[in-house]
């Protein structure tokens, strides 16, 4: 071939893409999408309720964990007698202690799933959700060789009622 040399001109000439129109689009689109973006998701807690038209249920003598939330603290009962009382810590309910005790109870009764959360009338709704969370499932930090946190279902069938 006659030409052994490249045309240097071709390689050194670079076409610059004109970014201004693309930039215009981005500058308008990104703030708009950021403002209208929703990052929190709504999920639901399902409740098990006895139907009001149903016949009176025969209360079985099975184990049923109850957490009574009072303005003075928490009480844990097993359906008939109080197992423990958990006083408030720093004006907040001691959910850590409740979690430990519920976990222990579950270890003792692995087949029972019923639980009730009973509250006094003036307690805030938020506390109801937090207590339900603690009763429904617990987390165990993973063992030393695994990093994941395992989630354990404790008492999944939670119902709500008034504190006696």
């Amino acid at each position, binding site marked *: 071939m006659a030409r052994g040399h490249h045309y240097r001109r071709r390689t050194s000439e670079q076409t610059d893409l004109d970014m201004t129109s693309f*930039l215009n689009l981005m500058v308008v689109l*990104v703030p708009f*999408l950021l403002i209208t973006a929703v990052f929190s998701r709504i999920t*639901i*807690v399902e409740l098990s309720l006895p139907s009001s038209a149903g016949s009176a249920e025969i209360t079985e003598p099975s184990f049923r964990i109850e957490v009574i939330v009072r303005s003075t603290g928490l009480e844990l009962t097993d359906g008939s007698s109080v197992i423990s009382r958990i006083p408030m810590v720093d004006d907040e309910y001691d959910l850590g202690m409740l*979690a430990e005790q519920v976990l222990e109870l579950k270890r003792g009764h692995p087949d029972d799933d019923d639980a009730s959360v009973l509250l006094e009338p003036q307690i*805030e709704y938020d506390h109801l*959700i937090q207590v*339900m969370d603690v009763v429904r499932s617990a987390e165990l*930090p993973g063992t030393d060789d695994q990093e994941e946190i395992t989630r354990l279902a404790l008492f999944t069938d939670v119902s709500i009622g008034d504190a006696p």
Partner: protein
Amino acid sequence: MARNRTKTTKMNLTALMDVFTILVFFLLVNSATTEVLETPKQITLPASVVEEKPRETVVIFVSPTEVTVQGQPVALVADILATENQNIGPIADRLAEVSKNIIGLRTLTVAESKEVTILADRSVPFNVVKKVMSTATSEGYGRISLAVLQKASDKPRS
């Protein structure tokens, strides 16, 4: 200065373009997945670790001041606190109305689901929520769900 040429430096915009492109793609995908239930702006829902998605049901919205059923305000929380009986009249009426006024497919699914989703602010006292729930059950809505914000699981204290 002998040379007074104004020299314009050209900014290298490739990095900016990269970031904006990625951001736009992410946000487009994010806003494309629309939720069944919108996060209400006026109230703060409590947070919980549950993972069940909300369904197409009758929505009862309880703010610290009033109660709204399917978009229409029906009662004031102050009135609910004042009444003694367990069922709240206006809410019951509105629920009955909802199950009768079936216009299109969406209202049909809502009415047939026989389920109520309660969006209540976290500071609402329990007796108000309880009265709302018992009103709903007495109107035939057997299932009740409480809407919460999904939070990542936090470590146990032990």
